[in-house]
C-alpha cells in the first residue's frame, strides 16, 4: 500500500558574524585547532557570557524575511549535558521564549507552489569538534560558541523532494539576506528531519523518527527515502515504529538507530541566570529588508517580462542574482541579459566550477558587450567571440579594438560585392538560373573578406540587389 509521508525539519544555520555569540573570538573557518579560543568560550571558571548584538540582528533579519513574529522580549536557557566538546557542560539556547515565533516559507517543487509553516527560530551557541585519531581523541574548541539560529518547521513536508526543495530555498534565502554563508560542507547549514508515515491524510501522525547526520542535499534525499521505505516495511509486516533518533550512514546507504525515546537525554533546561532577558530596542524593525527572492522573481516576471523559468534560474542563488542585477544596471536589455547570462556565461562558470562573483567577465564588461550588440557595433557572432576572449582574460578595450566596429553602411559593402560578382561569373550564373541557396555562399565570402565585421543582413540585401541587377 502507499503511505502518506509527514516530515518536519530543524535547520541549524551559522550566523555570518565576525565574532562568536558570547565572546570576541573569531568565527572564521579552517584555522588551526584551538587558535580561536578564549577563557569565555573555553568555559573557564569565573567567566560570563556577553551577547553579540550582531548575532541578534541577523536572527531578526532571518525572522523578518520568513514572516515570523519577532518577540520584543526573549530569554536564554541552559541545556545541560556532558560532552568534551561542550566546555561549560551546558549549551546556552532559547528554550522557553525564542526570539521568533511562527512564519512560513514559500517555494516551488516541480513547478508547483508550496508553503511550509515555521514553528520558531531561536538563537543558540554551537559546540566544539572532536577528532578521533590513533593517538586518542582531541578537542578543537574553535567552533565552540559560534552563533547559530535553529529554524524549526511544522510537519508540513510530504516527500524527500519537498524537503530538498525547502532546504534549497531556505539556504538561498539566508545567504541572500546575508544571515549565513550556508556552507553545508563546512557545517554552517545543517538539517535534522523528523520523519513519520501514516495511511491517509486524514489519519493522525505516525510515530516519528529523527534523522541526523544529513550533510548534503543528496544525503537528505537518500536518507528520507530510505527511512520512509524502512518505516513502510516495518508497518507492512505488522511491526511498530519506535520513536528514536537515527543516523544516516551514507557509505552503507542506511539509517541506524542512535538512541530511543527511553534513552533520550534529560537536558534539565532552566533559565540562564547570567544573561538578562533580550529586550529589542525601539526601531529594530526600521532597517529595510533587501528585496527577497520571491519578490524578485515576481518583478522579473511581471515587470521585466522574463519567463517564469528564467526568473527562477536567475534568483536561485544570491551571487548569480546579484551579478544579473549588476548587468541590468548597465542599461542592458533584460531579456537579452537573461539569455546571455544563462546561455553564454553560466555554462562556462559551471564548467569551471566558479561562482558568479568569481566570473572572469565582470557584470560591467558583459554590459559593455551587450551595449555594442544593441548598437549593432558587434554582430551576435562577434559579441560571443568578445565574451569568450574576455572570459579568457583579455582586456575588453583590446578585444573591441581588434574586432573593430560592424559595417552597417550598404555603400561600404558595394565595392567588395561588385568585386565578388566580377570574380565569380559561374556562381553568379548558377544563382541567376535559380539556385537561390548560393546566396549563403556569397554572404560567407563577403563576411570572410570583411573579417566578420560586415553586418550579415546588410550584406544580404546589398548582394540580392546587385545580383538581381546583373540580369539585365
Amino acid at each position, binding site marked *: 500500500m502507499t503511505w502518506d509521508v509527514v516530515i518536519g525539519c530543524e535547520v541549524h544555520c551559522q550566523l555570518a558574524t565576525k565574532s562568536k555569540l558570547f565572546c570576541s573570538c573569531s568565527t572564521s573557518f579552517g584555522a588551526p585547532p584551538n587558535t580561536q579560543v578564549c577563557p569565555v568560550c*573555553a568555559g573557564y571558571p569565573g567567566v560570563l557570557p*556577553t551577547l553579540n548584538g550582531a548575532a541578534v540582528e541577523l536572527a531578526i533579519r532571518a525572522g523578518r524575511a520568513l514572516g515570523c513574529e519577532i518577540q520584543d522580549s526573549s530569554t536564554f536557557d541552559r541545556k545541560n549535558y556532558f560532552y568534551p566538546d561542550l566546555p561549560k557542560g551546558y549549551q546556552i539556547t532559547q528554550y522557553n521564549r525564542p526570539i521568533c515565533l511562527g512564519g512560513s516559507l514559500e517555494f516551488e517543487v516541480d513547478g508547483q507552489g508550496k508553503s511550509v509553516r515555521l514553528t520558531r527560530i531561536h538563537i543558540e551557541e554551537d559546540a566544539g569538534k572532536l577528532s578521533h585519531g590513533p593517538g586518542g581523541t582531541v*578537542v578543537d574548541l574553535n567552533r565552540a560558541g559560534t552563533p547559530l539560529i535553529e529554524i524549526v518547521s511544522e510537519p508540513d513536508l510530504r516527500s524527500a523532494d519537498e524537503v530538498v526543495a525547502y532546504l534549497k530555498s531556505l539556504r538561498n534565502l539566508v545567504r541572500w539576506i546575508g544571515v549565513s554563508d550556508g556552507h553545508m560542507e563546512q557545517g554552517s547549514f545543517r538539517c535534522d528531519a523528523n520523519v513519520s508515515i501514516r495511511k491517509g491524510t486524514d489519519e493522525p501522525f505516525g510515530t516519528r523518527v529523527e534523522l541526523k547526520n544529513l550533510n548534503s542535499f543528496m544525503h537528505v534525499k537518500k536518507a528520507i527515502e530510505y527511512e520512509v521505505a524502512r518505516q513502510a516495511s516495518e508497518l507492512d509486516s505488522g511491526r511498530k515504529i519506535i520513536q528514536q533518533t537515527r543516523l544516516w550512514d551514507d557509505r552503507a546507504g542506511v539509517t541506524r538507530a542512535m538512541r530511543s525515546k527511553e534513552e533520550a537525554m*534529560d537536558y534539565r533546561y*532552566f533559565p540562564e541566570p*547570567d544573561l538578562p532577558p533580550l529586550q529589542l530596542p525601539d526601531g529594530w524593525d526600521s532597517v529595510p529588508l533587501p528585496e527577497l527572492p520571491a519578490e524578485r522573481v515576481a518583478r522579473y516576471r511581471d515587470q521585466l517580462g522574463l519567463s517564469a523559468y528564467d526568473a527562477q534560474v536567475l534568483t536561485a542563488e544570491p551571487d548569480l542574482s546579484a551579478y544579473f542585477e549588476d548587468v541590468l544596471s548597465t542599461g542592458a536589455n533584460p531579456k537579452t541579459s537573461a539569455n546571455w547570462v544563462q546561455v553564454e556565461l553560466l555554462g562556462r562558470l559551471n564548467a569551471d566550477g566558479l561562482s558568479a562573483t568569481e566570473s572572469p567577465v565582470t557584470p560591467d564588461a558583459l554590459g559593455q558587450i551587450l551595449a555594442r550588440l544593441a548598437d549593432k557595433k558587434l554582430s551576435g557572432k562577434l559579441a560571443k567571440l568578445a565574451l569568450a576572449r574576455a572570459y579568457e582574460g583579455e582586456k575588453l578595450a583590446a578585444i573591441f579594438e581588434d574586432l573593430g566596429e560592424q559595417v552597417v553602411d550598404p555603400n561600404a559593402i558595394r565595392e567588395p560585392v561588385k568585386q565578388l560578382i566580377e570574380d565569380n561569373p559561374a556562381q553568379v550564373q548558377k544563382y541567376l538560373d535559380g539556385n537561390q541557396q548560393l546566396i549563403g555562399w556569397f554572404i560567407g565570402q563577403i563576411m570572410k573578406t570583411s573579417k566578420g565585421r560586415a553586418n550579415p543582413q546588410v550584406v544580404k540585401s546589398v548582394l540580392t540587389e546587385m545580383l538581381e541587377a546583373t540580369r539585365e
Partner: protein
Amino acid sequence: MTIHHQSATQLTRIICAGDISAYEVTTASLEQIQAENPNLNAAITICAEKAQAAAKRLDESIGRGEIPGPLAGVPIVVKDNLCTEGVETTAGSHILRGHIPPFTATAVARLVNAGAIIVAKSNLDEFAMGSSTEHSAFGATKNPWDHTRVPGGSSGGSAAAVAAGWAPISLGSDTGGSIRQPASLCGVYGLKPTWGRVSRFGLIAFASSLDQVGPFARTAQDLAAALQVMAGHDPHDATSTAYATDALNTALEKDIRGQRIGICPEWMSGNGLSTGVADTVSHAIEVFEKMGAKIVEVTLPKTQEALAAYYVLAPAEASSNLARFDGVRFGVRNEANTLPEMYKSTRGTQFGDEVIRRILLGTFVLSDGYREAYYRQAQRVRGQITHEFESAFADCDLIASPTSPVIAPLIGAQTDPLAMYRMDEFTIGANLAGLPALSIPCGYSDSMPVGLQLIAPKFREERLLSIAAAYERHAGQPGVAS
C-alpha cells in the same frame, strides 16, 4: 597599634603623605599572616613576592609624583573563588589544585587599580558551599576570637583575616549569607551589595542568580570605600548595572533621625535563635531608636519558606555551574580508560561531600518529572518573597534582624547538614530578592561577636552605610581579635 591595623582610609592617607611606604605596610601585613596562618588557616595562598613587588611599584609611582588611587597601599585579602591572574585560584577544591587563571576578577581588578595590594587568597567552604569554612579541601579555618570555633562561612577565611587584623579590607562572595554570616561570627562588617551592583566576572560561580561579591572591613568608611571602587557596570558581566554610587559618598555623615527601621517579629524569636544573640541585637536596635530612628513592625511570612526555596534553586544552578569541572580543560584529571569513567573518577573523588550532595540535589530538582514540583515551585516562592520585601519597604526604609541565630559554633560540632543550612535562615531572603544587606558587629554574647543584619531596597546601600556609621560613632570601631 600595629601599622597595618589602621583603617584602609588612614593607611592610604599616611602612605600618600610619605609617612610610611606601601612596602612597609605590605611587609607588616605579610609578616603577621605568615606567623599566624599555620594556626588560623585563613589563607590558602600567601602572595608575598607579588605583594611586595606591587608595593614597591606603588612606592616608586608615588615617588614620581603620580596620583595614587583611593586605596593606595592597602593590603587586601581575596576569597579564593575570585580569579587572580597568575595566582592559583582553587575555590577551596581539590579539583582546581594548580589552576592559575589567565584573568583577574573585575571586582578584584578594580581594587588593585585603586592601589590595593593582594596579600593573600583566603580559605572558604569548597565552591562557597557551606557556612563554617570546615568544608574546604585545605582544612578548616579557625575563628580569631576563639580558635576552637568556626569563623562561619563560606567566606570564613576573608572574615577571619580582617578580624585578625591581617588586612583592613577583604573580599568575599555571598550566595545565601556567605559574607554576612562569617562577618557576624568574626565581629567585622560584611556587606552583600545588590545583585548586579558589583560585577561577578571572575567569581567562580556557585548559584549565579544569587551570588554577589562584597567587602569585609572593620570600619563603615572602609566598607563604603571598597564598594565605591568595585561597583558599576562591567562589559564582561551582562547582569551588572551602572546604577549611580553618588549617595555612598555622603552616606557616612548622614543623620539617621527619622529613618524607619522595620522589625519582623518572627525573626526576633524562635527559629533556633539564641537568647544571647536576640538580646544583643535588641539592644543595638534600642540604640538606633535612641539615635532618632523610628522602629516599625513589618511582616514577612513568606520568608519562612526562603530556606526551602534556596536549597532547591541554589543547588539547581550549582549543578549546572559545576558541570565545567570535568577534567577536560583545566584543574585536575583522573586518567581512565573511557570518557564516562574519566568523568566519574575525576568528579567523584576531586569534589568534596558537600559539593557532591548539592550537585545531586540540583540535578534531581531539575530533572524531567520533578522540575515542576521543585524548581518551578521554588521559583514561584522566590517571586513571592521578592514581592513581600517590596511591600514591606513601603512601610520602612530598612529591615533589621540578627545576622546569624547563634554565635560561632565549635569546630566539628555541626554534623547535620540541615542544622548548618539553618544558620542561613535570616540571610537567605536578601539573596532571593536580590537586596543589599549588611552585617554590623553589635556586641558580644559569651565573649563571641554578634552581628546585626540590615536589609535595604535594591541599590540603597547608602542606607545600610548610614546606620553602620552612626552606630560606629556611638559604639566605637570593632577591634582586632585578640
